[in-house]
């Protein structure tokens, strides 16, 4: 591939992702309203789709206030970290056999590395705000994300074992006969739970918990800095959905009446909708319940899944 092709792929991926993240503002509001028997956005444009424009304009023109008691530079850097780390993770996602920014041979490990750096946005944002609610949110966020990161990696290793490669391209190609969701159902469930906790979406949004902590780690943020956290969250949902599709649901593979990219986007969109359905239907657990389930139930399950997968893989290979 020439340099120009690489540049086009990078720009194209960025363009599509940022538009999806913005469009999700409307999708989420509309779907939540449907599932909760409300009307939802219906004023601006057909079916209220121009709410995206109205929301973005509002965020751009709001006063971008940095509290005088905040640690100024850390306060500014924090929202950029989340968007940066999530966008970096998309480097390894194969949208189709050709459209992939870089099929690294450490593949899925790179995704884990970048998502582990995403914690900093919460921790630093909450700390720099110099506000008790924000600090509480940051501490919850840090412990939640460290706890759930541990078995997030472990739950994916079953798939890596069955494929024998970290490369996402190889992983998708290994699913030509059967999707890994059949062989690794436990891995899928564990990864998805960890994914919800990593993106701190409802029901696991305890770092934010507006009913207890105002808005948690981003209480002090306004204007486009808040917008970055907002976009980062939607990009995170898209990322977790895309990784789930690639690892467990055969990525771009599908019947030939639709092109590969269409299959990838359809599957990813189904998971994004599932994320929104979870928000519409589940209550938030208590903080200690979340930590106990993480360390005492989900981590041992992930280890057991890994052990059994390893034993079976050894038996089959002889």
């Amino acid at each position, binding site marked *: 591939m020439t340099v120009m092709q690489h540049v086009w792929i990078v720009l194209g991926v960025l363009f599509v992702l940022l538009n999806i993240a913005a469009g999700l503002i409307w999708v989420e509001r509309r779907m939540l309203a449907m599932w909760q028997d409300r009307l939802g956005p219906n004023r601006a444009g057909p079916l209220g789709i121009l709410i995206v424009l109205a929301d973005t304009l509002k965020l751009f023109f709001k006063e971008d206030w940095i509290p005088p008691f905040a*640690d100024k530079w*850390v306060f500014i850097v924090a929202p950029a970290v989340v968007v940066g780390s999530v966008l970096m993770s998309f480097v390894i996602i194969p949208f189709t056999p050709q459209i992939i920014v870089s099929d*690294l*041979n*450490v593949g899925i*490990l*790179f995704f*884990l*590395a*970048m998502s*582990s*750096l995403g*914690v*900093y946005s919460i*921790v*630093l944002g909450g*700390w720099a705000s110099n506000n008790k609610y924000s*600090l509480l949110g*940051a*501490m919850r966020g*840090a*412990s939640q*994300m*460290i706890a759930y*990161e541990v078995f997030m*990696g472990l739950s994916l290793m079953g798939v890596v074992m069955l494929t024998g490669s*970290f490369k996402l391209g190889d992983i998708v190609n290994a699913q030509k006969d059967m999707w890994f969701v059949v062989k690794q159902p436990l891995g899928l469930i564990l990864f998805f739970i960890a994914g919800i906790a990593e993106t701190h979406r409802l029901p696991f949004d305890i770092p934010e918990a507006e009913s207890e902590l105002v808005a948690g780690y981003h209480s002090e943020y306004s204007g486009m800095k808040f917008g970055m956290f907002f976009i980062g969250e939607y990009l995170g949902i898209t990322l977790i959905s895309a990784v789930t599709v690639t690892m467990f649901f055969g990525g771009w593979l599908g019947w030939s009446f639709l092109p590969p990219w269409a299959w990838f986007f359809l599957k990813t969109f189904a998971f994004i909708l599932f994320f929104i359905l979870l928000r519409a239907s589940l209550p938030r657990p208590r903080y200690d319940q979340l930590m106990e389930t993480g360390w005492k139930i989900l981590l041992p399950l992930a280890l057991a899944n890994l052990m059994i997968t390893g034993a079976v893989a050894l038996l089959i290979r002889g």
Partner: protein
Amino acid sequence: MNYLFYISSIVAIAATVMVITRHQPVHALLYLVVSFLGVAMIFLSLGAPFVATLEIILYAGAIIVLFIFVVMMLNLGRESAIQEKQWMQPKTWIGPSILTAILLGELLVLLTMGGSVPMPQQTVDLKKIPLSLYGEYVIAVELTGFLLMAGIVGAAHIGRHKKKYLHRFLKQEEEAV
């Protein structure tokens, strides 16, 4: 490739110097993250992507988060930053710095006098790492396992719940249940 190595080395060294000289502990830890990212880039430029990613996952992504977590809990205010500033007087660091600078100069002279070794250009195959860990170095891996187990036992011992002392009314209630 050499340029990438030198640039990331300079970033790592500069970040480490900033770690030492910051007064605010959280700022120091942030520079430490940058320093780890620089070291990860060094590994990557030397053809060891696996070690590079592990460096980011473990050090930058987990250990430093725990450090920041502890610093946040301590909630060190302005006073500790002022105290740090007082400890960083030039008269305390200039002497040792000059002496180490002389040693560094000597090291550089020695390194340039000796013949240079070309940088490795090939990437380490991912499968070689587990094969050597669980083949050649299996005893070292198991000994490390012992060491970590000792750490976990120690942590469990420290974090164990203390015996509960209840008021006699509550005690009766608990026994009734």
